[in-house]
Protein backbone atom coordinates (compact mmCIF):
# COMPACT_ATOMS: atom_id res chain seq x y z
CA UNK A 1 0.00 0.00 0.00
CA UNK A 2 2.06 2.91 -1.28
CA UNK A 3 1.43 6.62 -1.29
CA UNK A 4 1.26 6.69 -5.07
CA UNK A 5 -0.69 4.61 -7.58
CA UNK A 6 1.40 3.43 -10.50
CA UNK A 7 0.41 2.12 -13.91
CA UNK A 8 2.12 0.80 -17.00
CA UNK A 9 2.13 3.31 -19.86
CA UNK A 10 1.46 2.20 -23.44
CA UNK A 11 5.22 2.22 -23.92
CA UNK A 12 5.75 -0.23 -21.11
CA UNK A 13 7.08 2.26 -18.60
CA UNK A 14 5.94 2.32 -15.02
CA UNK A 15 4.49 5.76 -14.37
CA UNK A 16 2.69 7.35 -11.43
CA UNK A 17 -0.92 8.22 -12.16
CA UNK A 18 -2.12 9.78 -8.92
CA UNK A 19 -1.95 9.48 -5.16
CA UNK A 20 -3.45 6.53 -3.32
CA UNK A 21 -6.91 7.69 -2.38
CA UNK A 22 -6.74 6.34 1.15
CA UNK A 23 -4.63 9.44 1.86
CA UNK A 24 -7.90 11.38 1.87
CA UNK A 25 -8.84 9.53 5.05
CA UNK A 26 -5.34 9.76 6.45
CA UNK A 27 -5.44 13.55 6.18
CA UNK A 28 -9.02 13.87 7.41
CA UNK A 29 -8.28 11.70 10.44
CA UNK A 30 -5.00 13.53 11.07
CA UNK A 31 -6.83 16.83 11.08
CA UNK A 32 -9.41 15.45 13.47
CA UNK A 33 -6.77 14.02 15.80
CA UNK A 34 -4.92 17.33 15.84
CA UNK A 35 -8.10 19.10 16.87
CA UNK A 36 -8.82 16.61 19.65
CA UNK A 37 -5.26 16.68 20.98
CA UNK A 38 -5.09 20.46 20.83
CA UNK A 39 -8.46 20.88 22.52
CA UNK A 40 -7.39 18.52 25.31
CA UNK A 41 -4.05 20.28 25.69
CA UNK A 42 -5.61 23.74 25.90
CA UNK A 43 -8.40 22.55 28.17
CA UNK A 44 -6.29 20.50 30.60
CA UNK A 45 -2.58 21.12 30.40
CA UNK A 46 -1.87 24.54 28.92
CA UNK A 47 -0.78 27.27 31.28
CA UNK A 48 -2.36 30.73 31.02
CA UNK A 49 -0.69 33.01 28.51
CA UNK A 50 1.72 35.49 29.99
CA UNK A 51 3.34 38.22 27.95
CA UNK A 52 5.91 40.86 28.72
CA UNK A 53 3.99 44.14 28.79
CA UNK A 54 5.68 47.52 28.96
CA UNK A 55 3.15 49.87 27.34
CA UNK A 56 3.29 53.48 28.29
CA UNK A 57 -0.01 55.09 29.39
CA UNK A 58 0.20 57.44 26.45
CA UNK A 59 0.58 54.58 24.01
CA UNK A 60 -2.35 52.75 25.55
CA UNK A 61 -4.51 55.85 25.46
CA UNK A 62 -3.81 56.27 21.78
CA UNK A 63 -5.26 52.88 20.86
CA UNK A 64 -8.73 53.23 19.36
CA UNK A 65 -11.72 51.24 20.61
CA UNK A 66 -11.78 49.36 17.34
CA UNK A 67 -8.39 48.42 16.01
CA UNK A 68 -8.46 48.07 12.24
CA UNK A 69 -6.93 44.75 11.18
CA UNK A 70 -8.14 43.70 7.72
CA UNK A 71 -9.20 46.05 4.95
CA UNK A 72 -12.37 45.35 2.99
CA UNK A 73 -10.33 44.23 0.02
CA UNK A 74 -8.28 41.84 2.16
CA UNK A 75 -11.40 40.40 3.74
CA UNK A 76 -13.10 40.02 0.38
CA UNK A 77 -10.08 38.13 -0.89
CA UNK A 78 -10.08 35.86 2.13
CA UNK A 79 -13.72 34.87 1.77
CA UNK A 80 -13.60 34.47 -1.99
CA UNK A 81 -10.57 32.23 -1.52
CA UNK A 82 -12.30 30.34 1.29
CA UNK A 83 -15.40 29.66 -0.78
CA UNK A 84 -13.40 28.57 -3.79
CA UNK A 85 -11.18 26.37 -1.62
CA UNK A 86 -14.17 24.67 -0.03
CA UNK A 87 -15.72 24.18 -3.48
CA UNK A 88 -12.46 22.65 -4.67
CA UNK A 89 -12.27 20.25 -1.75
CA UNK A 90 -15.91 19.21 -2.07
CA UNK A 91 -15.72 18.69 -5.82
CA UNK A 92 -12.39 16.90 -5.61
CA UNK A 93 -12.93 14.48 -2.79
CA UNK A 94 -16.64 13.76 -2.36
CA UNK A 95 -16.70 11.76 -5.61
CA UNK A 96 -13.70 9.81 -4.36
CA UNK A 97 -15.51 8.79 -1.19
CA UNK A 98 -18.68 7.69 -2.94
CA UNK A 99 -20.80 10.81 -3.46
CA UNK A 100 -21.14 10.81 -7.23
CA UNK A 101 -21.92 13.97 -9.18
CA UNK A 102 -20.70 15.89 -12.20
CA UNK A 103 -17.75 17.55 -10.51
CA UNK A 104 -15.16 18.37 -13.15
CA UNK A 105 -16.58 21.64 -14.46
CA UNK A 106 -17.31 22.99 -11.00
CA UNK A 107 -13.82 21.98 -9.92
CA UNK A 108 -11.90 23.82 -12.59
CA UNK A 109 -14.12 26.88 -12.36
CA UNK A 110 -13.48 27.03 -8.60
CA UNK A 111 -9.80 26.49 -9.39
CA UNK A 112 -9.76 29.48 -11.72
CA UNK A 113 -11.44 31.62 -9.07
CA UNK A 114 -8.85 30.52 -6.52
CA UNK A 115 -5.99 31.16 -8.94
CA UNK A 116 -7.25 34.64 -9.78
CA UNK A 117 -7.82 35.52 -6.13
CA UNK A 118 -4.38 34.28 -5.09
CA UNK A 119 -2.66 36.22 -7.87
CA UNK A 120 -4.61 39.28 -6.78
CA UNK A 121 -3.61 38.67 -3.17
CA UNK A 122 0.07 38.36 -4.02
CA UNK A 123 0.02 41.68 -5.89
CA UNK A 124 -2.16 43.38 -3.29
CA UNK A 125 -0.10 42.16 -0.34
CA UNK A 126 3.16 43.00 -2.04
CA UNK A 127 2.35 46.58 -2.96
CA UNK A 128 -0.57 47.75 -0.81
CA UNK A 129 -0.18 45.88 2.47
CA UNK A 130 2.69 45.37 4.86
CA UNK A 131 4.27 42.48 2.98
CA UNK A 132 6.61 41.43 5.79
CA UNK A 133 3.94 41.32 8.48
CA UNK A 134 3.07 37.72 7.61
CA UNK A 135 6.64 36.41 7.66
CA UNK A 136 8.37 35.32 10.90
CA UNK A 137 10.96 37.70 12.29
CA UNK A 138 13.73 37.23 14.85
CA UNK A 139 11.46 38.23 17.77
CA UNK A 140 8.92 35.59 16.72
CA UNK A 141 11.60 32.91 16.78
CA UNK A 142 13.05 34.12 20.06
CA UNK A 143 9.59 34.21 21.64
CA UNK A 144 8.70 30.80 20.26
CA UNK A 145 11.69 29.39 22.11
CA UNK A 146 10.67 31.23 25.27
CA UNK A 147 7.09 30.01 25.06
CA UNK A 148 8.24 26.46 24.48
CA UNK A 149 10.56 26.53 27.46
CA UNK A 150 7.88 27.99 29.70
CA UNK A 151 5.39 25.37 28.50
CA UNK A 152 7.82 22.66 29.64
CA UNK A 153 8.30 24.38 33.00
CA UNK A 154 11.75 25.80 32.29
CA UNK A 155 12.85 29.27 33.30
CA UNK A 156 12.52 31.79 30.51
CA UNK A 157 11.50 35.44 30.31
CA UNK A 158 7.91 36.00 29.21
CA UNK A 159 7.62 36.50 25.47
CA UNK A 160 6.58 39.75 23.89
CA UNK A 161 3.08 40.03 22.62
CA UNK A 162 2.54 39.26 18.95
CA UNK A 163 2.90 41.61 16.07
CA UNK A 164 -0.06 41.76 13.68
CA UNK A 165 0.01 37.97 13.24
CA UNK A 166 1.02 35.33 15.81
CA UNK A 167 3.85 33.03 14.77
CA UNK A 168 1.43 30.10 14.35
CA UNK A 169 -0.52 32.23 11.89
CA UNK A 170 2.64 32.93 9.96
CA UNK A 171 3.61 29.28 9.78
CA UNK A 172 0.10 28.33 8.71
CA UNK A 173 0.17 31.00 6.03
CA UNK A 174 3.46 29.65 4.72
CA UNK A 175 2.25 26.04 4.58
CA UNK A 176 -1.01 26.94 2.90
CA UNK A 177 0.90 29.19 0.51
CA UNK A 178 3.07 26.24 -0.54
CA UNK A 179 0.20 23.79 -0.87
CA UNK A 180 -2.03 26.38 -2.53
CA UNK A 181 0.59 27.32 -5.09
CA UNK A 182 1.24 23.63 -5.75
CA UNK A 183 -2.41 22.85 -6.52
CA UNK A 184 -2.77 26.03 -8.56
CA UNK A 185 0.33 25.49 -10.68
CA UNK A 186 -0.42 21.83 -11.34
CA UNK A 187 -4.14 22.47 -11.71
CA UNK A 188 -3.61 25.09 -14.39
CA UNK A 189 -1.58 22.60 -16.42
CA UNK A 190 -4.15 19.87 -15.81
CA UNK A 191 -6.75 22.07 -17.45
CA UNK A 192 -5.01 21.22 -20.71
CA UNK A 193 -6.53 17.76 -20.29
CA UNK A 194 -10.20 18.56 -19.76
CA UNK A 195 -12.84 20.41 -21.69
CA UNK A 196 -12.77 24.02 -20.49
CA UNK A 197 -15.10 25.34 -23.17
CA UNK A 198 -12.24 26.89 -25.08
CA UNK A 199 -10.49 28.67 -22.21
CA UNK A 200 -7.61 26.22 -22.51
CA UNK A 201 -6.97 24.30 -25.72
CA UNK A 202 -6.74 20.61 -24.93
CA UNK A 203 -3.36 19.05 -25.47
CA UNK A 204 -2.38 16.05 -23.38
CA UNK A 205 0.98 15.92 -25.12
CA UNK A 206 2.35 19.05 -23.45
CA UNK A 207 4.21 16.72 -21.10
CA UNK A 208 5.20 13.09 -21.13
CA UNK A 209 3.43 10.43 -19.06
CA UNK A 210 5.96 10.61 -16.23
CA UNK A 211 5.73 14.39 -15.92
CA UNK A 212 1.95 14.29 -16.07
CA UNK A 213 1.93 11.58 -13.46
CA UNK A 214 4.13 13.57 -11.11
CA UNK A 215 1.90 16.56 -11.66
CA UNK A 216 -1.20 14.57 -10.71
CA UNK A 217 0.63 13.21 -7.67
CA UNK A 218 1.73 16.67 -6.53
CA UNK A 219 -1.77 18.01 -7.11
CA UNK A 220 -3.19 15.15 -5.08
CA UNK A 221 -0.70 15.41 -2.22
CA UNK A 222 -1.20 19.14 -1.89
CA UNK A 223 -4.97 18.61 -2.22
CA UNK A 224 -5.27 16.04 0.56
CA UNK A 225 -2.92 18.15 2.67
CA UNK A 226 -5.38 21.00 2.28
CA UNK A 227 -8.10 18.82 3.79
CA UNK A 228 -6.19 18.74 7.08
CA UNK A 229 -5.08 22.36 6.80
CA UNK A 230 -8.60 23.66 6.20
CA UNK A 231 -9.99 21.53 9.02
CA UNK A 232 -7.41 22.97 11.39
CA UNK A 233 -8.04 26.50 10.11
CA UNK A 234 -11.80 26.22 10.67
CA UNK A 235 -11.14 24.69 14.10
CA UNK A 236 -9.02 27.63 15.20
CA UNK A 237 -11.50 30.02 13.63
CA UNK A 238 -14.23 28.86 15.98
CA UNK A 239 -12.17 28.36 19.15
CA UNK A 240 -13.41 30.84 21.79
CA UNK A 241 -10.03 32.45 22.41
CA UNK A 242 -9.56 33.01 18.66
CA UNK A 243 -13.02 34.42 17.93
CA UNK A 244 -11.82 38.05 18.05
CA UNK A 245 -9.45 37.23 15.21
CA UNK A 246 -12.23 35.52 13.26
CA UNK A 247 -14.53 38.48 13.86
CA UNK A 248 -11.84 40.79 12.55
CA UNK A 249 -11.89 38.82 9.30
CA UNK A 250 -15.61 39.55 9.07
CA UNK A 251 -15.88 43.11 10.35
CA UNK A 252 -12.36 44.32 9.74
CA UNK A 253 -11.42 45.30 13.28
CA UNK A 254 -10.71 43.81 16.69
CA UNK A 255 -11.54 45.24 20.09
CA UNK A 256 -9.04 47.39 21.93
CA UNK A 257 -8.90 44.99 24.91
CA UNK A 258 -8.02 42.01 22.80
CA UNK A 259 -5.46 44.00 20.88
CA UNK A 260 -3.71 45.15 24.04
CA UNK A 261 -3.85 41.66 25.50
CA UNK A 262 -2.33 39.81 22.55
CA UNK A 263 -0.59 42.35 20.37
CA UNK A 264 2.37 44.61 20.99
CA UNK A 265 1.73 48.20 19.85
CA UNK A 266 5.44 48.55 19.22
CA UNK A 267 5.43 45.60 16.84
CA UNK A 268 2.07 46.35 15.24
CA UNK A 269 1.44 50.05 15.26
CA UNK A 270 -2.09 51.26 14.68
CA UNK A 271 -3.24 54.75 13.97
CA UNK A 272 -4.27 56.77 17.03
CA UNK A 273 -7.86 56.92 18.19
CA UNK A 274 -8.64 60.20 16.45
CA UNK A 275 -10.91 58.53 13.87
CA UNK A 276 -13.25 57.11 16.48
CA UNK A 277 -15.10 53.80 16.71
CA UNK A 278 -16.67 54.11 13.29
CA UNK A 279 -13.30 54.13 11.61
CA UNK A 280 -13.09 51.82 8.63
CA UNK A 281 -9.71 50.37 7.78
CA UNK A 282 -8.20 51.15 4.44
CA UNK A 283 -5.84 49.19 2.24
CA UNK A 284 -2.95 50.96 3.89
CA UNK A 285 -3.74 49.38 7.25
Amino acid sequence: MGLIQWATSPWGNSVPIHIAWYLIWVCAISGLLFMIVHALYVGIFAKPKKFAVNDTPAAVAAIPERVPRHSFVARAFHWVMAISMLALLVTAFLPKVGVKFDWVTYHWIAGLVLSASVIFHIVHASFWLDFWSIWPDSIDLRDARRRMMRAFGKDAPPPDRFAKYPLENKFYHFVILCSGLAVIATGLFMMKRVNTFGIFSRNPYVFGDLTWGMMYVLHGLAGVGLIALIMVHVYFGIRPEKLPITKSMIFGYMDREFYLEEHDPQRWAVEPAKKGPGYAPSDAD
Partner: protein
Amino acid sequence: MAVIRDVMPAFDLLQPASAADAQKLLQQYGEDAWIMAGGLDSFDWLKDRIKKPKVLVDLSGISEMSGVRETGNGVEIGAMTTLTEIAHHPVIKSQYGVLSQAVEVVASPQIRNQGTLGGNVSQDTRCWYYRDGWPCYRAGGNICYADTPVGRNREHAIFGANRCVAVHPSDSVPALIALDAKFVIQTPKGEKVVDAEDYFVGPDIDITRLNIIQPGELLTTIRIPNTWAGAKFYFEKVRDRNVWDFPLMNVASAMKVSGGNIDSMRIAVNAVAPKPMRLKAVEDAVRGKPANADTGEMAGKLAVQGAVPLQFNAYKIPLMRNLVKRAIGGVQEAQWA
Protein backbone atom coordinates in the same frame (compact mmCIF):
# COMPACT_ATOMS: atom_id res chain seq x y z
CA MET B 1 -1.43 -4.52 -20.21
CA ALA B 2 -2.69 -7.46 -22.19
CA VAL B 3 0.17 -9.92 -21.83
CA ILE B 4 -1.23 -13.40 -22.00
CA ARG B 5 -4.33 -14.75 -23.66
CA ASP B 6 -6.20 -17.89 -22.63
CA VAL B 7 -4.68 -18.24 -19.18
CA MET B 8 -7.01 -16.62 -16.73
CA PRO B 9 -5.85 -15.42 -13.33
CA ALA B 10 -6.90 -17.63 -10.44
CA PHE B 11 -10.23 -16.89 -8.79
CA ASP B 12 -12.80 -18.69 -6.71
CA LEU B 13 -15.70 -19.80 -8.88
CA LEU B 14 -19.06 -19.53 -7.15
CA GLN B 15 -22.18 -20.91 -8.84
CA PRO B 16 -25.29 -19.97 -6.89
CA ALA B 17 -28.58 -21.66 -7.71
CA SER B 18 -30.87 -18.74 -6.91
CA ALA B 19 -30.91 -15.00 -7.43
CA ALA B 20 -31.13 -14.46 -3.69
CA ASP B 21 -28.01 -16.56 -3.12
CA ALA B 22 -26.19 -14.73 -5.89
CA GLN B 23 -27.05 -11.36 -4.40
CA LYS B 24 -25.87 -12.50 -0.98
CA LEU B 25 -22.57 -13.67 -2.43
CA LEU B 26 -22.11 -10.39 -4.26
CA GLN B 27 -22.85 -8.55 -1.04
CA GLN B 28 -20.41 -10.72 0.87
CA TYR B 29 -17.52 -10.24 -1.53
CA GLY B 30 -18.27 -6.67 -2.57
CA GLU B 31 -15.71 -5.22 -4.95
CA ASP B 32 -13.77 -8.48 -5.01
CA ALA B 33 -16.61 -10.19 -6.89
CA TRP B 34 -17.15 -10.29 -10.63
CA ILE B 35 -20.59 -11.08 -12.08
CA MET B 36 -20.57 -13.40 -15.08
CA ALA B 37 -23.68 -13.91 -17.19
CA GLY B 38 -22.95 -15.37 -20.64
CA GLY B 39 -19.23 -14.74 -20.19
CA LEU B 40 -18.69 -13.01 -23.52
CA ASP B 41 -17.52 -9.77 -21.96
CA SER B 42 -16.06 -11.41 -18.86
CA PHE B 43 -13.75 -13.86 -20.60
CA ASP B 44 -12.17 -11.07 -22.65
CA TRP B 45 -11.22 -9.26 -19.48
CA LEU B 46 -10.13 -12.38 -17.65
CA LYS B 47 -8.12 -13.96 -20.46
CA ASP B 48 -6.34 -10.68 -21.10
CA ARG B 49 -5.58 -10.68 -17.37
CA ILE B 50 -6.70 -7.07 -17.11
CA LYS B 51 -9.44 -7.73 -14.58
CA LYS B 52 -8.36 -9.98 -11.76
CA PRO B 53 -11.31 -10.60 -9.46
CA LYS B 54 -10.88 -12.75 -6.39
CA VAL B 55 -14.32 -14.29 -6.82
CA LEU B 56 -16.34 -14.98 -9.95
CA VAL B 57 -20.08 -15.38 -9.44
CA ASP B 58 -21.40 -17.43 -12.35
CA LEU B 59 -25.13 -16.87 -12.85
CA SER B 60 -25.63 -19.57 -15.47
CA GLY B 61 -27.14 -22.03 -12.99
CA ILE B 62 -29.94 -19.73 -11.85
CA SER B 63 -33.01 -20.97 -13.71
CA GLU B 64 -35.34 -18.38 -12.18
CA MET B 65 -33.37 -15.65 -13.95
CA SER B 66 -33.97 -17.20 -17.35
CA GLY B 67 -36.96 -17.13 -19.67
CA VAL B 68 -39.72 -14.83 -20.89
CA ARG B 69 -42.88 -14.68 -18.80
CA GLU B 70 -46.11 -12.96 -19.74
CA THR B 71 -47.65 -10.91 -16.97
CA GLY B 72 -50.92 -9.04 -16.69
CA ASN B 73 -49.42 -5.87 -18.03
CA GLY B 74 -46.56 -6.93 -20.26
CA VAL B 75 -43.68 -9.36 -20.15
CA GLU B 76 -40.84 -10.09 -17.78
CA ILE B 77 -37.54 -11.22 -19.20
CA GLY B 78 -35.03 -12.84 -16.90
CA ALA B 79 -31.63 -11.21 -17.10
CA MET B 80 -30.08 -14.59 -17.98
CA THR B 81 -32.37 -15.20 -20.95
CA THR B 82 -30.32 -15.72 -24.09
CA LEU B 83 -30.56 -13.27 -26.94
CA THR B 84 -31.54 -16.10 -29.27
CA GLU B 85 -34.50 -17.04 -27.08
CA ILE B 86 -35.66 -13.42 -27.00
CA ALA B 87 -35.24 -12.99 -30.74
CA HIS B 88 -37.41 -16.03 -31.44
CA HIS B 89 -39.97 -15.70 -28.68
CA PRO B 90 -43.43 -15.42 -30.26
CA VAL B 91 -44.79 -12.76 -27.90
CA ILE B 92 -41.66 -10.63 -28.23
CA LYS B 93 -41.75 -10.96 -31.99
CA SER B 94 -45.41 -10.13 -32.31
CA GLN B 95 -45.87 -7.45 -29.65
CA TYR B 96 -42.43 -6.02 -28.98
CA GLY B 97 -40.81 -6.55 -32.33
CA VAL B 98 -38.27 -3.78 -31.93
CA LEU B 99 -36.54 -5.80 -29.22
CA SER B 100 -36.63 -8.92 -31.35
CA GLN B 101 -35.05 -7.01 -34.23
CA ALA B 102 -32.42 -5.49 -31.98
CA VAL B 103 -31.18 -8.70 -30.38
CA GLU B 104 -31.29 -10.49 -33.74
CA VAL B 105 -28.44 -8.33 -34.97
CA VAL B 106 -26.21 -8.65 -31.92
CA ALA B 107 -22.86 -10.15 -32.94
CA SER B 108 -23.12 -13.69 -34.38
CA PRO B 109 -25.55 -16.61 -33.89
CA GLN B 110 -23.10 -18.42 -31.61
CA ILE B 111 -22.72 -15.35 -29.45
CA ARG B 112 -26.47 -14.81 -29.32
CA ASN B 113 -26.89 -18.41 -28.20
CA GLN B 114 -24.59 -17.78 -25.27
CA GLY B 115 -25.11 -14.07 -24.62
CA THR B 116 -27.84 -12.91 -22.29
CA LEU B 117 -30.01 -9.83 -22.15
CA GLY B 118 -28.63 -8.86 -18.74
CA GLY B 119 -25.11 -9.26 -20.01
CA ASN B 120 -25.82 -7.32 -23.19
CA VAL B 121 -27.16 -4.30 -21.31
CA SER B 122 -24.47 -4.49 -18.61
CA GLN B 123 -21.42 -5.09 -20.80
CA ASP B 124 -18.45 -2.78 -20.64
CA THR B 125 -17.43 -0.37 -23.35
CA ARG B 126 -15.39 -1.55 -26.32
CA CYS B 127 -12.94 1.36 -26.54
CA TRP B 128 -9.80 -0.49 -27.50
CA TYR B 129 -7.45 1.68 -25.49
CA TYR B 130 -9.44 0.77 -22.40
CA ARG B 131 -9.96 -2.87 -23.36
CA ASP B 132 -6.26 -3.27 -24.02
CA GLY B 133 -5.48 -2.37 -20.43
CA TRP B 134 -4.07 1.10 -20.95
CA PRO B 135 -4.27 3.30 -17.86
CA CYS B 136 -6.97 5.65 -19.14
CA TYR B 137 -9.49 7.60 -17.08
CA ARG B 138 -11.99 4.72 -17.16
CA ALA B 139 -9.29 2.38 -15.87
CA GLY B 140 -8.45 4.75 -13.02
CA GLY B 141 -5.71 6.70 -14.81
CA ASN B 142 -5.45 10.33 -15.83
CA ILE B 143 -5.80 10.44 -19.61
CA CYS B 144 -8.14 9.48 -22.43
CA TYR B 145 -5.97 8.00 -25.16
CA ALA B 146 -8.83 8.14 -27.66
CA ASP B 147 -9.34 11.86 -27.20
CA THR B 148 -5.93 13.14 -28.23
CA PRO B 149 -4.88 14.83 -31.45
CA VAL B 150 -3.80 11.46 -32.86
CA GLY B 151 -6.17 9.17 -30.95
CA ARG B 152 -8.17 6.72 -33.04
CA ASN B 153 -11.73 7.65 -32.21
CA ARG B 154 -13.82 6.77 -35.24
CA GLU B 155 -16.21 4.73 -33.08
CA HIS B 156 -16.31 7.10 -30.12
CA ALA B 157 -18.76 9.61 -28.69
CA ILE B 158 -20.25 12.73 -30.20
CA PHE B 159 -22.36 13.43 -27.12
CA GLY B 160 -21.80 13.31 -23.38
CA ALA B 161 -18.02 13.04 -23.39
CA ASN B 162 -16.49 14.01 -20.11
CA ARG B 163 -12.78 13.17 -20.14
CA CYS B 164 -13.70 9.65 -21.40
CA VAL B 165 -15.14 9.45 -24.93
CA ALA B 166 -16.04 5.76 -25.02
CA VAL B 167 -19.55 4.75 -26.09
CA HIS B 168 -22.01 2.18 -24.82
CA PRO B 169 -22.00 -0.75 -27.21
CA SER B 170 -25.34 -2.46 -26.62
CA ASP B 171 -27.86 -3.12 -29.38
CA SER B 172 -30.70 -4.16 -27.11
CA VAL B 173 -30.72 -1.07 -24.89
CA PRO B 174 -32.24 1.43 -27.37
CA ALA B 175 -35.07 -1.01 -28.00
CA LEU B 176 -35.65 -1.44 -24.27
CA ILE B 177 -35.69 2.32 -23.79
CA ALA B 178 -38.15 2.68 -26.67
CA LEU B 179 -40.39 0.09 -24.99
CA ASP B 180 -40.18 1.93 -21.64
CA ALA B 181 -38.66 -1.13 -19.99
CA LYS B 182 -37.94 -1.27 -16.26
CA PHE B 183 -34.82 -2.88 -14.85
CA VAL B 184 -35.24 -4.83 -11.62
CA ILE B 185 -32.18 -4.82 -9.38
CA GLN B 186 -31.73 -6.84 -6.21
CA THR B 187 -29.80 -4.83 -3.66
CA PRO B 188 -28.81 -5.46 -0.05
CA LYS B 189 -31.74 -3.22 0.89
CA GLY B 190 -34.26 -5.03 -1.29
CA GLU B 191 -35.62 -4.67 -4.80
CA LYS B 192 -34.99 -1.53 -6.81
CA VAL B 193 -36.75 -0.80 -10.10
CA VAL B 194 -35.38 1.82 -12.49
CA ASP B 195 -36.35 3.03 -15.93
CA ALA B 196 -34.19 1.60 -18.67
CA GLU B 197 -32.48 4.91 -19.43
CA ASP B 198 -31.73 5.45 -15.76
CA TYR B 199 -29.81 2.18 -15.51
CA PHE B 200 -26.85 3.82 -17.23
CA VAL B 201 -24.38 6.36 -15.94
CA GLY B 202 -22.05 8.69 -17.81
CA PRO B 203 -18.43 9.57 -17.07
CA ASP B 204 -19.50 12.92 -15.66
CA ILE B 205 -20.97 11.05 -12.70
CA ASP B 206 -18.86 7.89 -12.55
CA ILE B 207 -16.07 7.47 -15.04
CA THR B 208 -15.28 3.85 -14.11
CA ARG B 209 -18.74 2.38 -14.70
CA LEU B 210 -21.34 2.28 -17.46
CA ASN B 211 -24.29 1.45 -15.23
CA ILE B 212 -25.55 2.06 -11.74
CA ILE B 213 -24.96 -1.47 -10.45
CA GLN B 214 -22.91 -1.21 -7.27
CA PRO B 215 -20.98 -3.98 -5.52
CA GLY B 216 -23.53 -6.28 -3.90
CA GLU B 217 -26.25 -5.55 -6.47
CA LEU B 218 -27.62 -7.78 -9.20
CA LEU B 219 -29.79 -7.09 -12.24
CA THR B 220 -32.33 -9.93 -12.20
CA THR B 221 -35.23 -9.02 -14.49
CA ILE B 222 -36.26 -6.66 -17.22
CA ARG B 223 -39.95 -5.78 -17.30
CA ILE B 224 -41.56 -4.50 -20.45
CA PRO B 225 -44.98 -2.92 -19.94
CA ASN B 226 -47.64 -3.42 -22.59
CA THR B 227 -47.94 0.34 -23.10
CA TRP B 228 -46.16 0.12 -26.42
CA ALA B 229 -47.18 -3.42 -27.42
CA GLY B 230 -47.98 -3.59 -31.09
CA ALA B 231 -46.83 -0.02 -31.77
CA LYS B 232 -45.08 0.95 -34.99
CA PHE B 233 -41.48 0.03 -34.38
CA TYR B 234 -38.22 0.86 -36.09
CA PHE B 235 -34.76 -0.49 -35.43
CA GLU B 236 -31.64 -0.01 -37.47
CA LYS B 237 -28.03 -0.81 -36.72
CA VAL B 238 -25.10 0.51 -38.72
CA ARG B 239 -21.84 -1.40 -38.42
CA ASP B 240 -18.69 -1.98 -40.39
CA ARG B 241 -19.26 -5.72 -40.91
CA ASN B 242 -22.83 -6.90 -41.20
CA VAL B 243 -22.00 -10.44 -40.14
CA TRP B 244 -20.57 -9.62 -36.76
CA ASP B 245 -19.77 -6.26 -35.25
CA PHE B 246 -20.56 -3.77 -32.58
CA PRO B 247 -22.68 -0.84 -33.69
CA LEU B 248 -21.23 2.31 -35.11
CA MET B 249 -24.68 3.52 -34.20
CA ASN B 250 -28.15 2.13 -33.73
CA VAL B 251 -31.60 3.60 -33.34
CA ALA B 252 -34.83 2.19 -31.96
CA SER B 253 -38.25 3.76 -31.83
CA ALA B 254 -41.81 2.97 -30.88
CA MET B 255 -44.47 5.16 -32.37
CA LYS B 256 -48.23 5.37 -32.03
CA VAL B 257 -49.77 6.79 -35.16
CA SER B 258 -53.38 7.67 -35.90
CA GLY B 259 -54.61 9.24 -39.10
CA GLY B 260 -51.05 9.53 -40.29
CA ASN B 261 -50.07 11.70 -37.33
CA ILE B 262 -47.79 10.76 -34.46
CA ASP B 263 -49.72 10.53 -31.21
CA SER B 264 -46.69 9.65 -29.14
CA MET B 265 -43.24 8.26 -29.62
CA ARG B 266 -40.21 6.97 -27.77
CA ILE B 267 -36.87 6.95 -29.53
CA ALA B 268 -33.34 6.14 -28.41
CA VAL B 269 -29.93 5.85 -30.01
CA ASN B 270 -26.79 4.14 -28.84
CA ALA B 271 -23.06 4.18 -29.59
CA VAL B 272 -23.15 7.96 -29.79
CA ALA B 273 -22.46 8.68 -26.13
CA PRO B 274 -21.04 6.99 -23.03
CA LYS B 275 -24.58 5.99 -22.17
CA PRO B 276 -27.60 5.25 -24.35
CA MET B 277 -29.48 8.40 -25.30
CA ARG B 278 -33.23 8.77 -25.18
CA LEU B 279 -34.14 11.64 -27.49
CA LYS B 280 -36.81 13.39 -25.44
CA ALA B 281 -36.59 16.62 -27.43
CA VAL B 282 -37.36 14.67 -30.59
CA GLU B 283 -40.24 12.83 -28.91
CA ASP B 284 -41.78 16.14 -27.87
CA ALA B 285 -41.16 17.82 -31.21
CA VAL B 286 -42.82 15.17 -33.37
CA ARG B 287 -45.94 14.74 -31.26
CA GLY B 288 -48.99 15.59 -33.38
CA LYS B 289 -46.98 15.86 -36.56
CA PRO B 290 -47.33 13.61 -39.61
CA ALA B 291 -45.11 10.53 -39.64
CA ASN B 292 -43.33 11.44 -42.85
CA ALA B 293 -39.96 12.46 -44.21
CA ASP B 294 -40.44 16.15 -43.45
CA THR B 295 -41.04 15.45 -39.79
CA GLY B 296 -38.14 13.02 -39.87
CA GLU B 297 -35.92 15.68 -41.41
CA MET B 298 -36.84 18.13 -38.68
CA ALA B 299 -36.37 15.51 -35.98
CA GLY B 300 -32.99 14.47 -37.37
CA LYS B 301 -31.69 18.02 -37.27
CA LEU B 302 -33.00 18.43 -33.77
CA ALA B 303 -31.43 15.18 -32.63
CA VAL B 304 -27.87 16.18 -33.51
CA GLN B 305 -27.97 19.60 -31.91
CA GLY B 306 -25.10 19.87 -29.46
CA ALA B 307 -23.08 17.05 -31.01
CA VAL B 308 -19.32 17.54 -30.68
CA PRO B 309 -17.34 15.35 -33.06
CA LEU B 310 -13.83 14.12 -32.35
CA GLN B 311 -10.99 13.96 -34.83
CA PHE B 312 -12.30 10.97 -36.78
CA ASN B 313 -16.01 10.56 -36.06
CA ALA B 314 -17.71 13.57 -37.60
CA TYR B 315 -19.51 11.12 -39.89
CA LYS B 316 -21.64 10.17 -36.90
CA ILE B 317 -23.51 13.47 -37.05
CA PRO B 318 -25.12 12.95 -40.49
CA LEU B 319 -25.46 9.26 -39.67
CA MET B 320 -27.47 10.02 -36.56
CA ARG B 321 -29.49 12.67 -38.33
CA ASN B 322 -30.51 10.21 -41.00
CA LEU B 323 -31.15 7.30 -38.65
CA VAL B 324 -33.58 9.45 -36.69
CA LYS B 325 -35.12 10.63 -39.93
CA ARG B 326 -35.61 7.05 -41.10
CA ALA B 327 -37.03 6.00 -37.74
CA ILE B 328 -39.82 8.54 -38.23
CA GLY B 329 -40.29 8.81 -41.96
CA GLY B 330 -39.39 5.27 -42.92
CA VAL B 331 -36.62 4.05 -45.16
CA GLN B 332 -38.46 4.60 -48.42
CA GLU B 333 -39.29 8.21 -47.78
CA ALA B 334 -36.09 9.30 -46.15
CA GLN B 335 -33.47 9.88 -48.77
CA TRP B 336 -30.00 11.09 -47.90
CA ALA B 337 -30.04 14.85 -47.77
